[in-house]
């Protein structure tokens, strides 16, 4: 019952909002190049679906690649920092300072260095998703209490065994929490990358359509982008449940 209302309630709210939007556009006779009605957006979403899909696959690939780079990079750094306090003191302030730099400022440079292809966008997505992964994974590696580590040591476990059998599995729940934040940020990152310079992708499509006053297509691209984001988030949730199946057993 709760599950059903969990799906129906937001749907009803969305429907109400769309009706208000549709009604307002029709009532005030707003030009479609300022604000198109939802029905118009839906129509262009359907008619331009092949093109939207073509651009969505590019964006999807950039985000996935960015997540992989940001995820692996962030997790590796978290591990390195955990085992080396000196590295932690050296690296942490720099990482936090780097978060003050807007990705927008870096994206054009990446285009200059890496060209117009997939890579600069993936790197922007990785840069933006990297931070939550580092922070969460570092916390996760510290979860096991000292007694458990001592128990391992008293059993003669090596540092490597303590890492593999204790710290790594203990850090997975927070790693996934970090990755879930990273997914949503990576969507933003990839789009920014495409705005700065691309010839494919939903961000590129938005920019092009905006210039042609095809606001309906901008909205259709936004809709497609949120679908991409939701798919990625859902996929990550499925992986998380598989990996952390012991958590759902209370």
């Amino acid at each position, binding site marked *: 019952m709760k599950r059903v209302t969990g799906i129906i309630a937001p749907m009803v709210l969305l429907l109400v909002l769309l009706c208000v939007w549709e009604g307002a556009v029709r009532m005030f006779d707003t030009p479609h190049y300022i604000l198109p009605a939802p029905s118009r957006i839906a129509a262009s979403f359907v008619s331009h679906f092949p093109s939207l899909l073509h651009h969505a696959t590019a964006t999807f690939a950039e985000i996935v690649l960015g997540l992989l780079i940001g995820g692996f990079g962030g997790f590796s750094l978290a591990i390195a920092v955990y085992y080396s306090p000196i590295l932690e003191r050296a690296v942490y302030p720099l990482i936090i300072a780097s978060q003050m730099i807007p990705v927008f400022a870096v994206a054009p440079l990446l285009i200059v260095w890496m060209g117009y292809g997939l890579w600069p966008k993936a790197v922007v997505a990785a840069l933006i998703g990297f931070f939550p992964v580092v922070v969460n994974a570092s916390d996760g590696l510290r979860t096991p209490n000292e*007694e458990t580590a001592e128990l391992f040591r*008293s*059993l003669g476990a090596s540092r490597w065994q303590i890492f593999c059998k204790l710290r790594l599995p203990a850090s997975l729940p927070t790693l996934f929490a970090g990755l879930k934040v990273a997914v949503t940020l990576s969507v933003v990152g990839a789009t920014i990358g495409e705005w700065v310079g691309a010839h494919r992708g939903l961000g590129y499509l938005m920019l092009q359509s905006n210039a042609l006053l095809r606001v309906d297509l901008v909205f259709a691209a936004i809709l497609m982008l949120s679908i991409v984001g939701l798919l990625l988030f859902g996929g990550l949730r499925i992986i998380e449940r598989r990996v952390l199946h*012991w958590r759902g*057993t209370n």
Partner: protein
Amino acid sequence: MSNAAIRVNQATKAFGDGRERIPVLDSITFEVEWGTWTTILGPSGCGKTTLLRIVAGLLELDGGDVSIGATAGIPSQAAYLPQRDTLLPWRTALDNAILASEIERRSRSDAREEALDLFARFGLSGFEDLYPSQLSGGMRQRLALIRTFLSHRDVLLLDEPLGALDLLTRATLQDWLFSVWSELRKTILLVTHDVEEALLLSDKVLVLTERPAHVDRELRVEIPRPRDRSSFELAKTKGQLLRLLLEER
């Protein structure tokens, strides 16, 4: 005396640094013979856990020495069960139990078979594939004990393994622990603050003083086994010990 399993000689330990050093152990000396059960009893915060961790090889002594068996200070000769819950939530009960053999890379199927036998004896049959979060407090503690027994060490160091349990569960587990011990004949060093538990299970009770702790009294428990909680003899000794502990304060 060559048949001592654990030998602690003039053990001294302080925490903190510089002028702020707090002495915790003050030249503690005792021996535990092979296959016997010794219990450390003392007021809370007196350094019982510190002493156990030193015997386990997890802490360095400031003075004196500790040896297990013939060789001095090899930690892997004793299995240590910490006070706090140390079961791994991502492993099933069975996989938690065989942790030690996994760390030592012994045969997995042998370990499982052996574990299943102990599960049956500890009344955990049928719970092998559940996760710790699905088990009750008493079951979790039994599982932790099974894991300790399965470490194949001759010396077991148990830090208040039954401390957090309710009275009935505790009594049941004491009986279980005793029956497993009398069959496997391991050397056990138990830390507890429960006087009755100490008298019910051990051959020898070491009463520690307040911090800095030293051995106030070494008491051999001569009550014949199996012991009865309600026996007059046990109650009498318990009364004496309690009085001794209260005088410490």
